[in-house]
């Protein structure tokens, strides 16, 4: 009876122990590593929501049923999926379960002396023996000490060991991987990321409402936003006239890092963000905002200022929407902007150079209901014309005005805009430290050979030398040959 009641408990404990041993075994680590690699592959071949939401949407429109199925398996967000997380969490549990005991063993081993010289050296590798003159033990001790072997002398023999750095480096490497994971998690939990389009001449204040898009880590608080204000003074883009490719972007800004601080001038470049503690401000994209004035029938101004347009190609042919909700009836201009205008029969108007050398604003004029208060968020670059009527079509060069039945629009100027990306990542220094440690650990581990050398003086005056290289790495043979040559030379 007692047998019956004992069995399940024993079974559970030993089952757990068995599972733990399995999980922390080398074979499992290898399988999990391979799985991690293979599991990443779909993430690079299937469009991913965090990287490319538009492409995912296209996928849904083109293959609705297939996409729905793929969505069930998180195939559009592989790196945030439960199965991907399961793999790396198991891997890291296995890693900790494997590395911690090894760390303790290693600490113990590095304080201990090398093991005793084995009884039969002639069974070991690289065995040599010769007629000595008695000085060999002291001689080899000197030689081995100079090479920084750990030495244990015992009853006419020396046991020397070197290469503990191999294990130390390996442990550091694996522990550093944990540090990288910690850094990544901190960034995901306490970080934030936002983007804002700012016209040259305008000011950006770091508060949630000034962003066009903003996302927070799960544990981020609003008040963690650094209270800086950036004024965009000017933006210079240089292009190569031969290829139209951009050569250099320079953004000049004035910065007030916190309320009451003095204003300072700064430069932001593509590879040189502005830093406020762990918050960085990046120059991500740029384009043009045509400056327009729209008047109603009475001549009163209903809209004035720069309107950011969205670039469509390398020459900054841009599309945009000028929405005038305050006129009666509402007005909308579906527009494109060409910094250096050209036209042909196939494409219509397009830009042939990214600088605003010969700017042109093309648009159709619509009147009716813009649908702005329908509750559905609208793109600022597009107009829903389903409840509107087209009443005009025109293209303007700089300074020109177009009059239509409901009012007029003038094309007054062009202002560049820049897209500022604000990122706070409090974990990145941990990841960086982890990365550096990982490399140092690897170098220590992969370039150190762990090996033992033994010397014994026999009663009959013979000297015996042998060695052992862990995991069969080559090189020990030469080392022993050098030692033996040294002993024989000095002995003579």
């Amino acid at each position: 009876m007692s047998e019956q009641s004992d069995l399940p408990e024993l079974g559970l404990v030993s089952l757990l122990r068995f599972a733990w041993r399995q999980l922390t075994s080398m074979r499992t680590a290898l399988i999990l590593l391979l799985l991690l690699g293979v599991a990443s592959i779909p993430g690079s071949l299937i469009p991913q929501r965090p990287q490319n939401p538009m492409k995912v949407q296209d996928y849904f429109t083109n293959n609705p049923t297939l996409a729905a199925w793929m969505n069930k398996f998180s195939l559009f967000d592989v790196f945030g999926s439960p199965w991907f997380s399961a793999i790396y969490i198991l891997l890291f549990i296995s890693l900790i379960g494997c590395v911690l005991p090894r760390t303790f063993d290693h600490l113990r081993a590095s304080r201990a002396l090398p093991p005793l010289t084995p009884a039969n050296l002639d069974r070991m590798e690289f065995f040599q023996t010769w007629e000595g003159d008695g000085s060999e033990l002291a001689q080899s001790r000197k030689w081995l000490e100079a090479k920084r072997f750990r030495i244990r002398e015992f009853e006419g023999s020396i046991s020397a060991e070197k290469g503990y750095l191999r294990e130390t480096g390996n442990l550091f490497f694996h522990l550093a991987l944990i540090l990288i994971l910690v850094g990544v998690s901190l960034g995901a939990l306490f970080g934030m990321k936002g983007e804002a389009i700012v016209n040259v001449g305008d000011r950006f204040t770091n508060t949630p409402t000034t962003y066009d898009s903003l996302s927070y880590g799960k544990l981020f608080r609003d008040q963690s936003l650094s209270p800086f204000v950036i004024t965009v003074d000017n933006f210079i883009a240089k292009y190569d006239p031969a290829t139209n490719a951009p050569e250099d972007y320079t953004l000049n800004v004035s910065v007030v890092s916190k309320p009451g601080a003095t204003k300072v001038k700064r430069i932001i470049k593509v590879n040189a963000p502005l830093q406020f503690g762990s918050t960085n401000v990046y120059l991500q994209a740029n384009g043009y905002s045509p400056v327009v004035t729209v008047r109603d029938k009475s001549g009163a101004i209903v809209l004035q200022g720069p309107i950011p347009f969205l670039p469509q190609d390398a020459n900054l042919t841009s599309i945009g929407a000028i929405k005038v909700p305050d006129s009666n009836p509402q007005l909308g201009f579906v527009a494109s902007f060409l910094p250096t205008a050209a036209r042909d029969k196939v494409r219509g108007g397009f830009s042939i150079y990214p600088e605003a050398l010969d700017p042109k604003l093309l648009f159709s004029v619509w009147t009716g209901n813009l649908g702005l208060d329908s509750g559905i968020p609208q793109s600022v670059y597009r107009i829903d014309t389903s409840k509107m009527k087209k009443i005009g079509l025109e293209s303007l060069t700089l300074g020109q005005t177009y009059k239509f039945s409901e009012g007029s629009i003038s094309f007054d100027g062009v202002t560049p805009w820049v897209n500022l990306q604000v990122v706070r990542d409090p974990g990145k220094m941990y990841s960086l430290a982890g990365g550096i440690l990982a490399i140092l650990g690897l170098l220590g581990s992969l370039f150190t050979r762990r090996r033992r050398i033994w010397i014994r003086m026999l009663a009959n005056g013979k000297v015996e030398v042998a060695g052992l290289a862990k995991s069969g790495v080559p090189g020990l043979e030469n080392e022993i040959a050098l030692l033996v040559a040294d002993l024989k030379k000095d002995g003579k």
Partner: protein
Amino acid sequence: MTHSSWAYLSNYLVYSAMGVYTLAFFAHAYETAWAVRAPQGKEGERTEGSLMVKTLDYTRTEKAGRIATAFMILGFLLLFAGVISRGISAGRVPWGNMYEFSITGALAFTGAYLIALRKYDLRWLGLPVSIFVLLILGTAITVLYRPSAPLVPALKSYWLVIHVSAAIMSGGVFLLANTIAAAYLYLDSMEQKGERKEWAKRLPSLEVLDQLSYRLVAFVFPLWTFAVIAGAIWAEHAWGRYWGWDPKETWAFITWVAYAAYLHARVTVGWRGRKAAWLCLFAGSTFLFNYIYINIWGTGKHTYSGL
């Protein structure tokens, strides 16, 4: 010299390097083919056969081999000069598009071979190495060629120099390790059918090949780790995040994990031979896939192929 004459010079140097590699290829092929008929034993043991058989021996083959290696070195130097003058013509490091990545990659590959040659008996590898280099350079000048031009702003960073040079050097060694692993598999299947063919008898034993590809991988794995981390640091500078699972980053990660698995398999689970060679080939292919497929057909932020 003007920028365009540097660009012309660079092209001529790359063409001449190809010419010299072709000579190296023929010399290696000659050496390998010749060895087939080399006498196996002492003088006069093989009496049947033609006069030629008697007069041929390893010392003559040795000469062809030395000439082949000399051509490899000359090709390396010419290509090196070609890459440098390409850089001068553009006024920057020569790593701005896929043509430039490819010629530098070919340079790294032959460089890895020549360095490994100093330490190991690897001359026999010259044949596949010269074929690969010719293929890479041939594709580069025909399909990938772009006129020399300045860099786009995102590439203007000293991290470009650090990250790309580390990645290209790693690639060169990975390719070499792959060539050796492939040779292992080929010779292994030959041995399974019986004895090695005559020409292959000169090549090292399977154990040596197995060790060699492991040593190469163990040697570059830290460098590749560094290349990935340098890339992450650069991405942080340019795009505001150090890791974003962009396709290129994802494949760099896959390559890293695959080689980590390879090292694990060898060191801890004790894989040797065929299994290890296949894993090595798989890991190397992920690197090539990243380079070729993601650069040309991939999407994402890393679109610097210039195609």
